[in-house]
């Protein structure tokens, strides 16, 4: 699933150079950017030295907690307590890395495997779980399936199920940032499967033409549900497409937290300097199933999964932290226990909360209810009072 055999076509700009110079056409670097390899080799000591080690310890702890949350949520779904779930197991660096590399006024358009981008910015764990349960404190008022949350206070945009729609939206938001004189950037996340959608093409093309300060972050995790990379495209790298749009492209080892931070940081500097968008392709692997609705055994081998485990972003980071004296087994256990307790407490609280009030069914269609919606709200109230309501019969209140 990693395709690093092709030779690099151009130099990747370093963090300093990116802000001040740009070549024409913009460079497309397909040799995966790496800082810390799975075997512990340090490729870029200078970059490592530029990141406070305590921050890396905090990021690692958050990624460990995320894995605990994901594990717990899959179990909840299996017990019938959650309708649906999508884990980011194996891809944690692709959420926590960008969240760390960007500023809080940079907007983020997640797909559905990046709860980390909001949690890192302070989206409360309880609110995230309230959304998964769809209760009265769910910010989206129980209107969407689990995993489709919204985090306005964190500048993270509401999630929808059709894939790729956020790509041109991200381009538009980036355009608006520049138009308003803000030096913020907008980033969107999507999988390599989504790169086949028309919205991928129109979004990158618009952003390229407008030189919008956007970052297109493609998590190439090898599979679109069951469809392997080879059936998504004949091209060896998604990032190569950047060349066709006249924008900067960068392949990065998506399991290397340092490298992801570096790649996103450079892309942000490049965008803020007015040079335009970057397409980042993060090579990673979806250790999890696509969602709770599929079983990867049906479409990939155990051997392949075992091989992918070697690249797991967590152990390599842990070994590095241990070598710095910043981590040990006791901290690992403590982090996992705390995360487990926190998520179980949040779940217990979330499950005890009532449904969103029925009135919310008719709110937010428009800024104000139309007469038709007012009439339909009355119709529903009458039906619920009739004793023939399926909602009431199922215990709805």
């Amino acid at each position, binding site marked *: 699933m990693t395709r690093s055999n092709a030779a690099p076509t151009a130099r990747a700009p370093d963090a300093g150079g990116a802000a001040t110079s740009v070549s024409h056409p913009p460079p497309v670097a397909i040799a995966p950017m790496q800082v810390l390899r799975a075997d512990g080799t340090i490729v870029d000591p200078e970059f490592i030295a530029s990141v406070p080690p305590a921050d890396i310890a905090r990021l690692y702890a958050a990624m460990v907690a995320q894995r605990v949350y994901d594990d717990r949520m899959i179990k909840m779904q299996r017990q019938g307590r959650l309708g649906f779930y999508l884990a980011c197991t194996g891809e944690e660096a692709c959420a926590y890395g960008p969240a760390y590399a960007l500023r809080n006024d940079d907007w983020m358009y997640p797909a559905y495997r990046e709860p980390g981008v909001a949690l890192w910015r302070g989206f409360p764990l309880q609110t995230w779980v309230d959304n998964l349960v769809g209760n009265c404190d769910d910010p989206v008022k129980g209107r969407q399936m689990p995993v489709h949350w919204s985090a306005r206070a964190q500048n993270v945009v*509401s999630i929808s199920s*059709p894939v790729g*729609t956020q790509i041109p939206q991200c381009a538009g938001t980036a355009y608006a940032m520049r138009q308003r004189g803000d030096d913020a950037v907008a980033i969107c996340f999507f999988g390599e499967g989504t790169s086949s959608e*028309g919205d991928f093409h129109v979004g990158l093309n618009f952003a390229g*033409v407008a030189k919008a300060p956007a970052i297109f972050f493609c998590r190439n995790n090898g599979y679109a549900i069951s469809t392997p990379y080879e059936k998504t495209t004949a091209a060896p790298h998604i990032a190569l497409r950047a060349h066709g749009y006249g924008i900067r492209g960068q392949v990065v080892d998506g399991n290397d937290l340092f490298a992801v931070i570096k790649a996103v940081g450079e892309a942000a500097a490049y965008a803020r300097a007015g040079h335009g968008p970057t397409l980042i392709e993060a090579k990673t692997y979806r250790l999890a199933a696509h969602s709770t609705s599929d079983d990867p055994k049906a479409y990939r081998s155990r051997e392949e999964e075992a091989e992918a485990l070697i690249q797991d972003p967590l152990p390599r980071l842990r070994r590095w932290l241990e070598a710095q004296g910043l981590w040990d087994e006791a901290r690992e256990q403590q982090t996992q226990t705390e995360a487990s307790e926190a998520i179980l407490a949040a779940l217990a609280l979330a499950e005890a909360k009532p449904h969103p009030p029925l009135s919310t069914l008719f709110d937010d269609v428009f800024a104000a209810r139309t007469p038709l919606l007012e009439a339909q709200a009355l119709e529903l109230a009458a039906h619920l009072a009739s004793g023939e309501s399926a909602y009431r019969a199922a215990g709805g209140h």
Partner: protein
Amino acid sequence: MPTMNIIQAVNDALDLAMAADKDVVILGEDVGKFGGVFRATVGLQEKYGEDRVIDTPLAEAGIIGTAIGMALYGLRPVAEIQFSDFIFPAYDQIVNELAKFRYRSGGEYPCPMVIRTPFGGGIRGGHYHSQSPEATFAHHAGLVCVTPSNPYDAKGLLLAALASPDPVMVFEPKRIYRGPAHGTNWSAHPKGEVPAGHYTVPIGKADIARPLRGKGIPVSLISYGAMVETCREAAAKLEAEGIDVELIDLRTLVPYDLPAIVESVSRTGRAVVANEAPKTCGFAAEVVALIMEHCFDWLQAPPLRVTGYDTPFPYTLEAAYLPDSGRVAAAVRQVARYK
């Protein structure tokens, strides 16, 4: 008071809005340097710059998708889809994104923006420059849909759309943008009086385009867009036959003005609804259903629809396809003389 055609009225509204609010941006195919294929945005790029009147790549999903992203951040985009026939590549962005953003985010991300798109036939445009897809969008919760029929409403509704907290689709009647198209037999559509400054036509309010004259059998004739002119012509024809038409111009399809429909039909007891789109699931079907639900006790005759046929829109036989004033008049007669 100045007189303008619909194109001039749209241009005037956009000019006023852009002068008043620097967050207003226009984007679409050929809208900038060229001023739009119908010339609705002519002169605006020169006045407000390339960053605010944006010539986009040729991709409707991109126009709407980027406009959504702009609106979420606080700009007020006015996206032009050159012909409503070409809107479908953006259907997903409109239906699954724009229409649902406020709802799906629990009110965290409202997305107020305007989509302008010319609709309807009568310009010798064949399948792909003539369709009337308004019911398709009216069907999806979350989209305000307006359909001006004259220059005054075109300006006033567009300015109201720009002030709306909701996404608004403006379906503009291109056949009467500038008056009758060459080679068709549509009645001349004169310029209308349009106030120079800022004013709005309220969204959600129908207009009595022609009140009852008080002589003859009363019939409510309900329409919108370019068909209003066709209906007006039919009404004039019927006056001599002792049939008194009250012509209601809906102006807004979502949210429709139910009180205006009920008030008129309960008074006349007879109704004909005319739209240019095909009959099946057209907006006229919705209006007839509303009449049956709300006016049954007053009805003297079954309401009728006059619509386009359930075929793709034709080229050579366009004038035969389009509902003309003769077809409207025939339906009104049938309803008036129902026993």
